[in-house]
């Protein structure tokens, strides 16, 4: 059934039919950002310290230590009409407090925290993102701004975006959306819980059939049994579609290299990927396979600069 739905959606999009009920199922959801998330089956709601958190869960921005730019490209089923491209700039505001200051802050170093104190931007992290999906017949363009703030075990984040949907021959529609997210370190350094609500205001695209941008709630856990292994679990619910359950595993034998696999129940997609990190550069690649529709590929690069905490990088992605 899900395959059939996808094919149907694909056809609709390719043929440029009206933005009917099924078309919204393909596009205008929160989507995938970054090849790391894609490799983990997009179980990304509890991940942090990554610029792509701007769309996966802006609360995760709060732990970003250094200014970052990133580019992301996605190709689905070798069709140019389904390409996604995105770019992000994330800027921590206010210098990260030194290790001593971080330890003084109430709740900053909870009992049982790892010995190395982690630091995060004092005034939060702001990020700007632009993304485009589709080809000439049907495309979605969005410009978003996200903000994440972290205090101790808690991070909160929000995002506003402007979404434009264009269908050739039918014109275009523009709506503004607001989303909110949060993350909590249940066990410091080991277990993080993330929740993200996308389009909480249920923005309306068209009065015909009361078409709205989907409202999606995601909740998930990220578990780090050891410093090398990350286990991510997530459930995602679009109000109008069945629930999706996603899981991913990341293994980082050395700081510079990561291997990942993931699955997602609703799209019946499996994925795998590799990540390489060389000081300031990050390069991630993921391939996903859907039994009926074939391969998708994801590639992202990030570049960070400025002073960072070297140890921080090892623990984080």
């Amino acid at each position, binding site marked *: 059934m899900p395959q059939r739905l996808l094919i149907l959606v694909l056809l609709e999009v390719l043929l440029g039919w009206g933005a009917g009920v099924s078309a919204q199922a393909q596009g205008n959801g929160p989507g995938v950002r970054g090849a790391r998330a894609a490799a983990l089956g997009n179980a990304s709601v509890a991940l942090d310290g990554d610029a792509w958190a701007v769309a996966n869960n802006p609360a995760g921005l709060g732990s970003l230590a250094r200014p970052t730019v990133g580019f992301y490209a996605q190709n689905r089923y070798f069709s140019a009409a389904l390409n996604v491209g995105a770019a992000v700039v994330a800027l921590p505001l206010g210098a990260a407090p030194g290790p001593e200051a971080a330890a003084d802050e109430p*709740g900053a170093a909870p009992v049982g925290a790892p010995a190395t104190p982690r630091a995060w931007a004092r005034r939060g992290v702001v990020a700007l993102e632009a993304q485009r999906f589709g080809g000439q017949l049907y495309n979605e363009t969005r410009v978003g701004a996200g903000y994440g703030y972290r205090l101790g*075990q*808690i991070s909160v984040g929000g995002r506003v975006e402007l979404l434009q949907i264009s269908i050739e021959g039918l014109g275009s529609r523009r709506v503004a959306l607001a989303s909110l997210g*949060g993350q*909590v370190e*249940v*066990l410091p350094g080991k277990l993080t*819980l993330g*929740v993200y*609500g996308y389009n*909480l205001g*249920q923005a309306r695209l068209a009065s015909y059939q*009361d078409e*709205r941008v989907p*409202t*999606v*709630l995601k*909740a998930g856990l990220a578990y780090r049994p050891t410093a090398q292994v990350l286990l991510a679990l997530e*459930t995602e*619910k679009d*109000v*109008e579609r*069945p*629930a999706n359950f996603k899981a991913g595993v990341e293994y980082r034998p050395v700081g510079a290299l990561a291997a990942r696999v993931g699955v997602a129940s609703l799209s019946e997609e499996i994925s795998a990927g590799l990540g390489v990190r060389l000081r300031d550069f990050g390069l991630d690649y993921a391939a996903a396979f859907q039994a009926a529709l074939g391969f998708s590929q994801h590639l992202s690069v990030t570049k960070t600069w400025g002073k960072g905490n070297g140890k921080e990088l090892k623990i984080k992605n």
Partner: protein
Amino acid sequence: MSFLIFNSAKAQDYPRRPPDLDRLTQELFAEIQSDQVPVEDIYETLLNYYQAPLNLNAATREDLRALLLLSETQITSLLRHREANGLLLSVYELQSIEGFDLRTIGRILPFVAVAGGDGRAARGPLWQRILHEDNNYALLRYERVLQTRQGYTAPTLYQGRPTLRYLGGPDKLALRYRASHSQDFSVGFSLEKDAGEPWAWQPGQGRVGFDYFSAHLVLQARGRWKTIALGDYQLQFGQGLLLSSGFAVGKGAEVITTVRRSSVGVRPYAGLLENSFFRGGAATYQLGPRWEATAFASHRNADANLRQTQDSLAAYDEFSSGLIYTGLHRTATELANRHRLAETVGGGHLGYASANGDLAVGLSAVGTHYGTALLKRPESYNLFEFSGKNNLALGLHYSYVWRNLLLFGETARTTGGALGTVNGLLASLGPAVDAAVLVRHYPADFHSLYGNAFGENYRNINESGVYFGLKIRPAPRWEVSAYYDQFSFPWLRYRVGAPSRGHDALLRLAYTPSKTTILSTQLRQRLKPRDLPTSPDFPVPLPGNYLQQSLLLYYDAALSPALEVRTRLQASRLRLDDVQPWQAGYVLAQDVAYRFGRALKLTARYAVFDADSYDVRQYVYESDVWLAVSVPALYGQGTRAYALAEIRLGKPLTLWLRYAETRYRHQTTVGTGLETIQGPARSEVKAQLRYKF
């Protein structure tokens, strides 16, 4: 006044944290699966019980059991400790009692206090004690659905007659007052007008503007008179087989302590549920050091629809086909049924408790007389139901503590000769293992009209079953609980056209990394046959294997004294029979509560739900104004959100404001019948003002 402050300061040697009732209720009612359970009633009974802190120096074994938070072994060690070392000096002493770990102490602290002996004389005569009681409140509650429902629109004509409409406005209003002190007194009254009920002044029929009126005065520990109750009250004796009063939490995430009922005796009734209390008088008298006797009498008019018999050979000229428990009197029909059936109840209880309280035995008797005979509709499933005007029930209950075992049970006989029985065993098999076994048998012709002993059904009739419960703490922060309950219904039931059998099983894993954090996951499966829909191929309704499976993932943490978060994922599926397709329901909800200083607390939720049909509707517990509970049934596709503000306007005055909204996708109407709303959303506002004297 200064004397008073001194006195209360002395009694409270520990800064009591406000009880986190939300968390407790979430634990006790982890998963509500039915409309039948009067959650509101249970919640309020518990809340009232918790409102007046239990004095650990005066509490009896039954009082401690009613807390539902202590194991039998812990209760025994507390009582032994009190016996050996005299009265407790402070709650800090709890740490020195065997079996009291920090988690247990943390859980009970909000609900208990350590006070000296009877300080009543120092607080002056009764009227002064009532006037100066700290534990009092007067509250005014207002509620309304914002959208216009069909019942409130102008009537239209259908076949020349106006269609049915509600007679009153859509506002719901309640006014309540209560003051109580544990082991001393309780006084209070409640007035309520439900949405749709008209204002009316008919004092003879109990309509004093408001449609519902209730009041009580209960005095406790007056010499040998343990309790004297006037007005509205509830009774709970033994295992609740004959008399039960809302302490019946039933099966849930707590698998051990909720299995047995506590014999708390006469309880004041101050709730808003219009049909779950006695009205009249009751008294408990201490006959000797080990014996006590209770007598009670009640007379009230219950809602029922009365009919005349057409058949001249029938046993009764006039009869009622059943009592109506909703308490709603909104339409002409509902008003016509209001208070139509006179019900007179009388009875008593004789109880014996051994010197150390280990053995308790009691005899209870309940006689009921209806002014008009009851006669259920002539359906097969009603064949053995109660009919007639009189019912007499006699019961014997016992509980016996031996080492780490608690044996308890109750057996009763009702008019007609049916014997119903429930017997159980709670065992602390080790410091980290608790087990429970309960066996029950309620015949099809067993008529306990006010009972609510342990069972799968809400009423104790036509059911046999065996329950096993197990709770293990394998590591300090982990707890595994499980139960398996097997039941059979020897006669037909409503919507079940054959004798049937089923089971209910639960497995719960809870992890508490800190005192204020809990992560839990729970799986439940219930097989409870129900009739399949009839069709031309399948003309006779026969029960199918109606199977429900559910999953609950829950995270609750107080991240700081000011901030609390909760995440809840609830998913379930069911099928009508083995070969039928599954239907599924899903809810994901996120709650945040933040306290801005002492003056303001905000709570909010955003949830997404999707349930294929009414059968897989999802009940999700929500925070509500103080003393209220909200458990909406969600089905269809949509979002549910609410915001609740608790505002302290001054020391005596607190205001609650609540707004809740359910938005449905692809629906043009919400609700059915007179409750129908044109449009895709339903929103409710609620306001409550509390004044503490």
